[in-house]
Every structure is written in structure tokens, then in C-alpha cells.
């Protein structure tokens, strides 16, 4: 045992560690990833609300792309089908936009989703009070804690947003195929489609970050003395 001790002491004096407190990005990423993996089920539920909101957004946008594709063919038959399906088309319109009602529903669903994420993340912070306090005692800075939570939410955001956007897009395409027949899919402009899905993914990612921002700030401002509190 004494041998060990002297080894460590020698190593210390030769070790050129500067006056610094750091947490390398790779380490933060590894810690955040572990946090998600350990609380997989909870993360899944948090992400699920994001998936649903984003798939709805993606569905609305992709459906609109399909309608635009059909209109662009100039076929009066398609135009009649679209009007019957509820699209608000004037006789001269060659493009359609999402109507205000749809937009409101999408915005509402996104709001509900953000509130859900804030709620879930605040719970996660409360649950980890002692852990955060301990990390602070070990020398973690506020920004390490902030970064860990943002990274975690970012990863959840990417996965949830991509899954939601693709799910909503696919569902919309299937729906259109049933409503207007499979040929309708061939008229969709690929650029529009990709843009819609990318847009939905981006919105989802930002929502996830927006939702975690306040809880992460609460976590990072926590005092290390919390770690000393035994009752939990």
C-alpha cells in the first residue's frame, strides 16, 4: 500500500497540470449519452411528444406538397378531386398554402409539445439534484452542467425530429396515394418534399433545445451544498 502511495505522489509532482477546470466535449457527449441510455424509457416518452408534434407538422407540409404537385400538372380532374378533399382553391390558383386553421392546430400542437418537454426536463433536473451537486463539489462549472443537459436534449431532439418528420411525411404520402391514387405521388416535386421534411426536422431540433433551456439553467445554477443534503 505504501508503495502505491509513493508512486502516486511522485507522479503528481511530475504531472504538469495547469490551473484549469475543463470538461472535454467528447467526455460531455459520453456522459450525456449514458444518461439517455440509463433513463431510456423516460427519454423515450419525452421524445415521443416531440415525435408526434413534428410528424403532424411534417404531415401537413408534405400533404400540401402533394397538392401543389397535382395542381402543377394543370389537370382539371385533379383540381376537382382536391376541392372535394377540402382544399380551398380559387379558379385561378396554381399553388395552395396551408390554411390558417391547419396552421393554428400545428402551432398549438407544438406549444403543447414544448410545455411537455419543459415539464419532463424539470423533473429530470429535480431527480438529479444530488448528482448535479456532487459534480459541482468535484469542481464542475455551471457551463459543464448546462452543456450536459443541452447535449442530452440535442440528441433527443435529433432522433425525435428525424423520426417524426419521416413518419409524418410517409403517412402523408400513403394518405395521398389512397385519396388521389398512386399517380399523384409521381407529380410531387422532390425538392419541395425534401425541404418540408428538413424544415420539420429543424423545427423539432430547435423545440427540443428550447424546451430544455430553462430546466438546464435551473440545474446549472444549483449550489454544490445541495449534494450534502441526505434526505432525498
Amino acid at each position: 500500500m505504501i508503495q502505491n502511495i509513493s508512486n502516486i505522489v511522485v507522479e503528481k509532482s511530475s504531472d504538469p497540470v495547469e490551473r484549469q477546470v475543463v470538461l472535454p466535449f467528447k467526455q460531455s457527449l459520453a456522459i450525456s449519452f449514458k444518461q439517455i441510455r440509463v433513463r431510456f424509457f423516460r427519454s423515450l416518452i419525452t421524445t415521443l411528444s416531440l415525435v408526434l408534434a413534428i410528424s403532424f407538422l411534417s404531415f401537413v407540409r408534405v400533404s400540401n406538397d402533394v397538392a401543389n404537385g397535382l395542381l402543377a400538372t394543370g389537370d382539371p380532374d385533379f383540381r376537382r378531386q382536391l376541392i372535394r378533399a377540402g382544399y380551398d382553391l380559387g379558379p385561378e390558383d396554381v399553388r395552395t398554402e396551408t390554411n390558417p386553421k391547419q396552421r393554428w392546430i400545428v402551432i398549438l400542437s407544438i406549444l403543447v409539445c414544448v410545455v411537455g418537454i419543459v415539464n419532463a426536463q424539470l423533473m429530470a433536473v429535480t431527480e438529479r439534484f444530488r448528482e448535479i451537486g456532487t459534480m459541482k463539489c468535484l469542481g464542475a462549472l455551471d457551463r459543464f452542467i448546462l452543456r450536459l443537459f443541452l447535449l442530452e436534449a440535442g440528441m433527443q431532439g435529433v432522433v425525435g425530429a428525424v423520426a417524426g418528420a419521416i413518419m409524418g411525411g410517409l403517412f402523408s404520402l400513403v394518405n395521398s396515394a389512397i385519396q388521389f391514387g398512386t399517380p399523384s405521388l409521381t407529380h410531387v416535386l422532390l425538392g419541395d418534399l425534401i425541404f418540408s421534411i428538413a424544415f420539420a426536422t429543424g423545427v423539432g431540433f430547435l423545440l427540443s433545445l428550447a424546451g430544455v433551456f430553462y430546466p438546464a439553467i435551473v440545474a446549472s445554477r444549483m449550489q454544490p451544498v445541495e449534494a450534502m443534503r441526505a434526505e432525498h
Partner: protein
Amino acid sequence: MFNEQNEAVTDESSEAMERKIVRVSKVTKTFKLGKVDVRALKGVDLDIIAGRYVSIMGPSGSGKSTLFNMIGGLDKPTSGKVFIDEVDIAQLDAYELAWLRCRKIGYIFQTFNLIQVMTALENVTLPMIFGGMGNETAVEKGMELLDLVGLGDRYQHKPFELSGGQQQRVAVARALANDPAIILADEPTGNLDLITGEEIIALLKNLSWERKVTVISATHDIKMLNVSDQVIWIRDGQIEKIEERRDLTISVGSVGEKW
């Protein structure tokens, strides 16, 4: 600053031994509970000599925890000054405080407080990574420390796969990670059974003896008194008495006999 510490380890001259690692001067602390001011500390003066094993005793509500947190740089006094290694902690900004916690102080908690998602080794290496040590060096030293506390073969285990005593051993290894000058132990045996508690006390005493680390613990545990060089009794926000090792009249138990 570290060199001094090294000398203290190798050179056992009385001069190095008498260094005051913690100096508490006329410290008061007032908490606001609603509209009532609660005076948790009413003017405490205290010197703690480097390399000693010090216990802080006192009933709950005595200000024991407040004083303990103050010494650990976790709380700032309302008036008066706290010096850790001759640095006034009230003067430090958040970054310097974090550095102090990382490099100068090792914390041991009643509830172990290992990071649940990390293995024993990762828990021990975390403070070293905060301290700017490279990953490989940290892993190497982490393994040495786990060997030192007798858990070298369990480095891959997660905290929930370890017993209470083993978790506390990992916590001791983690506290030693950056070769701190002070180890602060808050009721380190509070959640352990008698025998495991004795093992942890023996380990702490051993470390303070061989590495000349100052161990400061807040405790109710009588077993702890047997190994203490100094016992500080707190009552009603003030120091009631300070007993030196030689003055202690408590019967020496099995742990104490080793020392």
C-alpha cells in the same frame, strides 16, 4: 502550492506539520427563514493544522453543518473570514471556487453520491478530467486509487452493483483523485453498518496518516472520536470546547488500538 504539499508528504519536519490549512476567523452566519433571522454561527474562531484528523461534533441545529460547509468552501460567511490554505474564499469567483473544490478539497458524503450512470473507475477519474488531466493518465491513476482502497478488481462495476461500504470506498478514492490537501467527510459512516463503518474510518485514518491529508469530518459516530487527533464540539453556534487527542477520555475501541 502543490510543492509545499509534496514536502509535507516526504518531509516530516514539525514546521510542515504546523501549517494551518484552514483558518476560520470571527465567522458568523445568519440565515433568513421567512422574516426571522436565524443565527447559525455566532462568531467562530478556529485553526485546523495540516495533516490532522479532525472531527466536528455537535447536535443537529448546532451550526455544525454550517461550519462544515464553510470550511469546505460550499458556503460563504455573513461576516468574518474563512481561509483555506491561506486563501480567503470570499474573494474567489465561481471559476476559482470550482478550481478549489476540484484540486484542494475532496468530498465524502453520507449518501456516497457516486454518479449512478458511471462505473467505479469513471467516478474516480471524473475529478481528474475536470482538473485537466489526460484520459490515459487519469485512468491509470484511477486504477491505482481503486487498488489503494481495495476495489481494484471492481472498477467496471456501477454503483448499484456495489455494497454501501464498497460505494463509500469508491467515494474515498474519488476524493483522493486530485491529491487534495483536505478531505471533507460529512457523516461518512452514517449510512453504514458497524463493521463497514469501522473499515471506512480505518481507511480514512490510514490515508490521513500516510499521505498527510487533513481529514475533517462532521459526525455523530463515537467510533470516529477514537481516531481523531482533535475533536471540536459545537453547540448553539459557538465552539463549546476543543479536545486534543491526548485529552480524550473515551475508552479506546478496536479501531483506535491500531493507532
